[in-house]
């Protein structure tokens, strides 16, 4: 199995705080890899580094066989890593469909002149974007909500819409930052089905999640962070039995 994302020796300081210290991560193609750790462990920072929102102080980033230096979020998306956000960041005033259509931006080409003249090619591209977005909405189970304003959707639906929007960028790697946060048990179950389906359809998933049952249930391998350091890597069972992980989550045994 080839490695899709290979990140090594990443460090990030905020002033004197070592948010991340020599952290690495390997995501094999077609797998679901989980990134877990207690609050403040540096998971989201790591995510932001991979996706170009922050720049790392050091580290090597290799995606799809090529080195890249994540400085611009847009370029990273262009390269094929799509992400969602821990605190939902939808385009609130737009409809669900429009949100997904924005996701198609980086895989479409119409320029200003083209948009103004609206020739045949442009109309075709526009139609293709609309159809693809509808299909993606149906894929995540929001087919009936296409015309709803994003801000009026329920929490669970907003999370799904973010996934659909990320999928619209045609990513190789889907990076989800706590997709189950705030969901109830039924919604979590449905999310799990969706994530497994996305993997079946050929995408690789990197997952930050607090919900242990979800992570243990679907991830092929886990990386555990604590205080900016990797404390365990391995299959869910290995990680569950690792003394370092138990210590990080539960503290020292007396």
């Amino acid at each position: 199995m080839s490695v899709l994302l290979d990140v090594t020796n990443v460090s990030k300081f905020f002033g004197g705080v070592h948010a991340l210290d020599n952290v690495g991560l390997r995501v094999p193609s077609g797998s679901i890899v989980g990134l877990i750790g207690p609050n403040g462990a540096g998971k989201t920072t790591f995510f932001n580094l991979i996706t170009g929102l922050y720049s790392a102080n050091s580290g090597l980033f290799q995606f799809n066989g090529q080195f890249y230096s994540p400085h611009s979020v847009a370029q990273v998306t262009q390269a094929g890593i799509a992400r969602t956000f821990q605190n939902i960041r939808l385009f609130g005033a737009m409809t669900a469909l429009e949100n997904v259509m924005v996701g198609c931006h980086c895989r479409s080409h119409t320029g200003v002149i083209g948009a103004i003249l609206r020739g045949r090619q442009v109309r075709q591209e526009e139609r293709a974007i609309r159809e693809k977005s509808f299909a993606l909405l149906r894929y995540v189970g929001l087919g009936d909500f296409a015309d709803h304003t994003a801000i009026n959707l329920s929490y669970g639906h907003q999370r799904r819409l973010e996934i659909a929007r990320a999928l619209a960028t045609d990513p190789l790697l889907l990076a989800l930052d706590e997709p189950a946060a705030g969901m109830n048990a039924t919604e979590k179950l449905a999310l799990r089905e969706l994530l497994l389906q996305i993997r079946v359809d050929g995408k690789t998933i990197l997952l930050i999640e607090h919900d242990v049952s979800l992570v243990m249930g679907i991830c092929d391998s886990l990386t555990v962070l604590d205080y900016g350091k990797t404390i365990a890597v391995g299959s869910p069972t290995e990680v569950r039995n690792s003394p370092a992980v138990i210590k990080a989550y539960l503290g020292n045994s007396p």
Partner: protein
Amino acid sequence: MLNFISQRRMFLWLAMLSLLILPWCVGSVGGNYWVRVLDFALLYVILALGLNVVVGFAGLLDLGFIAFYALGAYTFALLASPHLTQSFAAIAVLFPEGLHSLIWLACLIGAVLAATFGVILGVPTLKLRGDYLAIVTLGFGEIIRIFLNNLDRPMNLTNGPKGIRAIDSIELFGISFAKSLDLGFIQVPALYLIFYLFLVLACIATVICMRLQNSRIGRAWVAIREDEIAAQAMGINTRNLKLLAFAIGASFAGVAGVLFASFQGFVSPESFTLWESIVVLAMVVLGGIGHIPGVILGAVLLAIFPEVLRGVVQPLQNALFGHVLVDAEIMRQLIYGLALILIMLYRPKGIWQKRGASTS
């Protein structure tokens, strides 16, 4: 569905027909003065549509928008008036018959120049949003006006506060828009001709705005307005698209400025004060920010409204109290303020807001 389409088409035809006969109706009731008001209303429509691209679509609060209008106006004023040949001997030698630029060429130059300045304003303000951006753009607007006001020394480029006069009137396809046109069976007065010209341009501006809005570019702008980081995560190059919004909005104002200069025949820095920027912004906000029909409605309403007040306030007070208590100009500002407060309280997204837009 078919019924719906034909209904819509019929509505469009009716609207077009009523717009065609509008100057004749208004002219016969209110005289040339009111046709002139209509002409200006159409100029404001173009301006407001331009500002709507920047403020409404991309969400970049611009308080110096009138500067681009000024750039357009002075472009034509310099290229089609005796001013340059009178102040500079070298130019007089080059153009012995005086400078007389073609209006459409001047429109192009005005648009490109304004767009260039739009980008110049955009580059240093890329990281600013909201109030901070508003302050910088406000400063930019004032800088342009103060330059125009003072560039009569050391060399007389803009003729300072005295302004530039004797600007050529519009001439297009051999038709002069300064005198009435004889169509054989009917005489079309100059002001009516200008109305039709401005109407065509306003329609073009509307179509451009609508097509941009319903395109990949328009969606990207709204995405930036809603959440810039999420927009970047969609692969949108926010820097380029913001600059594009500035440039396109400015070019609308540039064209409107060229038309203004030739219509008025005279420009001075007084026409481009902060107050004018605020009026155009009020048109956008009052009408329905980001919603094209609303913006057009806002522009027409706010362009006509002061003239109505001017015609009503003083006669009404004379009739009621026997003398004028409050000046029309003061009344206008009072009612402006009141209208804005009421709109913000009861319809925060504008008079004619987007269907389905929540007011929360």
